């Protein structure tokens, strides 16, 4: 396999993998739609209990991290390994910030008695919303963590050893693609969970 074919194959493979990831979340979105259909008013009320400012902040953080990941690819295409390290590190840091904010949100809800999957009297009616909320954001957070690991292993670490050049930067592009997917999912999760409920 020559390098052009390998590059095309890797990219097509990555897109296919992203397709499967989207379909993993598709089940969640479909379940969300059905649950929302049956428990509309509960979903509205429960949605208002989420912390909108923190959610919005997290959206901004992820969008920004996506931007730096995109820039990292351009840097790699230009053979600028330092640029790859710099931009991916910012994305990585943004991922961390995202997770920290998410933890604050989770603990905040736990303090109010909205523990994951443990339904107390007061929030019993929100059980369906909270159930799917924790499933969706939990799975998404797992993807954030995987994305960060991928960025480190295939982006930051090789770039620190000057592995990439204008002729070979496939892993950077694939890692960035995966990170964009994490962002993409959140773009839908944010309004569905925090805004319209």
């Amino acid at each position, binding site marked *: *396999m020559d390098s052009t*074919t390998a590059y*095309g*194959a890797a990219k*097509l*493979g990555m897109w*296919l*993998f992203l*397709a*499967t*990831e989207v*379909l*993993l*979340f*598709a*089940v*969640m979105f*479909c*379940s969300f739609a*059905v*649950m929302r259909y*049956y*428990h509309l008013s509960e979903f509205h009320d429960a949605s208002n209990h989420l912390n909108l400012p923190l959610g919005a902040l997290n959206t901004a953080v992820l969008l920004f991290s996506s931007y730096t990941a995109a820039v990292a690819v351009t840097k790699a295409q230009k053979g600028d390994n330092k640029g790859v390290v710099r931009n991916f590190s910012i994305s990585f840091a943004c991922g961390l910030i995202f997770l920290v904010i998410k933890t604050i949100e989770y603990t905040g809800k736990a303090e109010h008695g909205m523990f*994951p*999957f443990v*339904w107390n009297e007061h929030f019993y009616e929100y*059980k*369906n919303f909270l*159930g*799917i909320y*924790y*499933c969706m954001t939990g799975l998404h957070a797992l993807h954030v963590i995987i994305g960060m690991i991928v960025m480190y292993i295939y982006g930051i670490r090789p770039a620190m050893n000057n592995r990439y050049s204008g002729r070979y930067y496939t892993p950077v592009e694939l890692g960035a693609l995966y990170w964009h997917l994490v962002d993409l999912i959140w773009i839908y999760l944010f309004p569905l969970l925090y805004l319209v409920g």
Partner: protein
Amino acid sequence: MAAHSASTTAGHEELNYLNWKTGLWSWLSSTDHKRICFLYLYAIMIFFVLGGIAALIMRTELATAGPTIPSIVKDSHTYNVFFTMHGVFMIFLFVVPGIPATLGNFLIPLMIGAKDVAFPRLNLFSWYLYVLGALIGAIAMMNPVDTGWTFYAPYSTTTDTNVSLMVFAAFVLGFSSILTGLNFIVTIHQLRAPGLTWMRLPVFIWASYATAIIQTVATPVVGMTLLLVIAERVFGAGIFDPTKGGDPVLMEHLFWFYSHPVVYIMVLPAFGVVGEIIPVFSRKPLFGYQMVVLSSIAIAAVGFIVWAHHMFVAGISDFSAKFFSIVTFLVAVPTAIKVFNWVSTMYKGSISFKTPMLYAMGFVFLFMVAGTTGIYLAMLGVDVYYHDTYFVVAHFHYTIQGGAVIGLIAALHMWFPKMSGKMYSETVSKTAFAVLFIGFNLTFIPQFILGMDGMPRRYYDYPVQYQTLHTLSTIGAFMNGFGYMLALLNLAWTAKFGKVKAPRNPYNSKGLEWQTASPPPHENFDTVPVVTEDPYNYGVPRHA
């Protein structure tokens, strides 16, 4: 096992993929698609045997009304465990990886003139995922699951057997399947030999391509659904459990969104196999090649919008039932087209009845039965009667056993000379075919009649009026099992001890895979082949 023996005579012959490296580790660490084919073949055969034993135990128990073999099936729970085992092993561990992961792995690179698949290491990783999934499933069997392979909520979320572990096993197996499919799609897109345009691809490649798409995009759906079942059991997520405001019918929807397309994962490659066999042994071009290709793609596409025909009496809305009944009939047409084209290929041919051809012809008959009984089940009013009766059981086994498994056995016979470099005994393989073909029909034709009489499925015990047919079916099942044993042992024995060397192209086929040595060298072709003609260019043009 079988294949190692070739290395003993390596001194006299050229190196091929079987003998260029030896030792168990050279197999377990091999990224060669042909060796991975064998890794899968051994693994799935273990589960074919286990699932088959479970089936025979069930059939024995059902031979008479009331307890038949209380020493083995001591109560209804044990019986429920056996049918769950049969379903889970046969579907997730045998038939789904069946043709794609074995023959698909072996043939796709060979048929498109490539050295290997696009991501050889990912290919090996898929196999290890499969093994991991199988091990988790085996551990789950410590407290065996009794839900049936469908894992319907809320039974699956409330029963106190090891459902969580078992569905997690299915999830892992799903990822093995996804990565295999992804690998094949990329391989077919990127690695075709020069001159091998899309319309020159063998139909097996087309079928595998359609299959791979379904594997890649449908499997995540069931994976996530099963994770939600775990979430329901462990956390009480409230999505499927009605006591928490969830909707069990939603679970059925999501489950069948994958599990209907999955029957095309099983059976499309078998269509491809038959499409390969019939032209070679008829010495004719495949009749209506474009229509055959198109119908594969159409089946894969339509397969995604018909899932709720498994749920006509599941409490879905009448509107939904009507909608899904009508779209279901859309699948019937491309399937019919395939059969017509296969039969027409034989017209004015020069037909030789080698074992693969017998299997292919048997396949046409079995699939006609499967297809026409499918029509009953697509018809709303009639399906209401037949749903969850033995008619469905029989129909399903005609499609999956008569389709996918017979397809797999046919393919193993067809490409056995290429895979092992030896020729098997035609007498034994034809006898085996006859036994398993008769046994198969004897097993399942009585089950159609049982279904007509209203016998429900998944019953440990039944009213005595059904006994005669059940007994017949049990006799058939043992015959069927014996036939499979004979067929597979014949191949295994030949691979290990066979003396007759296979020539490069024993059937005088035009297929690219036959143009290299038998067995092929490690990197398949000595020089990159260049394709200049259609895949089935048999016959004499002036006669056309």
